[in-house]
């Protein structure tokens, strides 16, 4: 009604201060008009997004796999300074929140992103900032580890996006139906993916894992020298190479655990970009996981080779390693980093590498 009142009535008689009155009416009319237009536009965008998501959900329920389909929004996002946005977001979320306000902020976050506050290790008012709350630990016993010695466990909480077996020398991982990327682009050209020559060494090594407690001899002879091309037709036929892609929603628990008893030999950090990695982005961004900033850990477990790639995103740009606290990610950068080779650190040259048990904490994602 206040908006309507400001409209000039048609029969109003012109008066001396008509100029002021009408200019006064115009400016106050403009302000709510712009506000209303913005709200309407945001509402329309949100409604459009809800419609798209609903349509995708219905297609998935019918078993129809949504295919890769680049869109204008993905091209537009490529133009934005996403790393600066991510770092600003990190600054914002690391601001200290007054003690009395903390429970309200974290409950609001939990409601918006479906987080389970009961599992948080500390009382809510003990987390000084949203960033600290985001990387919270869980109460003891919140995540029981599957004791089956012949199983591989999930290293994170999340949603299974893709999984399968990698076949052929140019092994490709499916990002979404209709688009795949080479495993070597994800792990790096110097990846330790096994070839025939190494399989015997791995065989020896696999046996030695069980006898580690007995003998302290060095575990692993691996030639880091030349790049390797993994070719299953050449490697011994009893082992295959598998992959699994797990997406963590903003409300999920964001610490990373060890999927098995393994010995981490190499860490590779790719600076890259920080595009969003939500479900929609996987359908519209080409090479999403091999363009984004990520930390790759490679090593060996009882069944042979293992690699874990932690891929960042705009809102969650930092990847912390508890096994290498000094590693810094999401650093301010100027030029395009996509062409830059990864920064590599070889753990095993310092001894036997980083030995972790199944379920041990090895790192965490964090905001900004």
């Amino acid at each position, binding site marked *: 009604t206040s908006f309507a009142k400001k409209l000039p009535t048609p029969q109003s008689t012109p008066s001396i201060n008509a100029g002021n009155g009408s200019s006064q009416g115009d400016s106050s009319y403009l302000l709510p008009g712009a506000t209303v237009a913005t709200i309407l536009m945001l509402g329309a965008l949100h409604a459009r997004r809800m419609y798209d998501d609903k349509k995708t959900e219905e297609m998935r329920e019918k078993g129809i796999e949504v295919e890769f389909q680049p869109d204008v929004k993905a091209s537009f996002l490529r133009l934005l300074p996403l790393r600066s946005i991510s770092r600003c977001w990190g600054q914002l979320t690391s601001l200290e929140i007054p003690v009395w306000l903390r429970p309200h902020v974290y409950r609001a976050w939990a409601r918006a992103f479906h987080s389970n506050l009961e599992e948080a290790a500390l009382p809510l008012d003990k987390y000084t900032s949203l960033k600290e709350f985001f990387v919270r630990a869980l109460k003891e016993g919140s*995540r*029981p*580890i*599957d004791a*089956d010695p*012949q*199983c*591989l*466990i*999930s*290293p*994170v*909480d*999340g*949603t*299974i*996006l*893709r*999984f399968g*077996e990698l076949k052929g020398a140019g092994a490709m*991982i499916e990002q979404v139906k209709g688009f795949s990327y080479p*495993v070597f682009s*994800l*792990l790096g050209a110097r990846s330790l*993916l*096994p070839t025939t020559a190494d399989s015997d060494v*791995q065989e020896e090594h696999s046996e030695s894992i069980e006898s580690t407690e007995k003998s302290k001899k060095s575990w692993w002879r691996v030639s880091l020298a030349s790049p390797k091309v993994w070719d299953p037709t050449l490697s011994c*036929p*009893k*082992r*295959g190479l*598998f*992959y*699994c*892609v*797990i*997406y*963590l929603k903003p409300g999920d*628990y964001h610490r*990373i*655990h060890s*999927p*098995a008893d393994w010995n981490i030999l190499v860490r590779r950090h790719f600076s890259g970009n920080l595009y969003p*990695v939500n479900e929609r982005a996987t359908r519209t961004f080409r090479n999403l*996981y091999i363009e984004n900033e990520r930390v790759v850990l490679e090593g060996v*477990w009882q*069944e*042979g*080779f*293992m*690699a*874990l*790639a*932690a*891929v*960042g*995103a705009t809102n969650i740009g930092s*990847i912390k390693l508890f096994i290498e606290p000094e590693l810094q990610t999401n650093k301010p950068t100027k030029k395009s980093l996509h062409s830059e080779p990864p920064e590599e650190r070889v753990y095993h040259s310092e001894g036997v590498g980083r030995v972790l048990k199944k*379920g041990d904490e090895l790192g965490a*994602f964090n905001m900004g």
Partner: protein
Amino acid sequence: STVVLVFEAPISKLLHKGGSSEEFNFSVKCGDKIRVGEALGRWHSS
């Protein structure tokens, strides 16, 4: 954020004597929610 796991696992391993074989199989489906510590897959002698 996203985690991609790439790993070797038995596809068919003739065990000594018994002649049985092991085979890794995923115990999840696309779209499943999973938590730390839950099995992604197992391999058992068949």
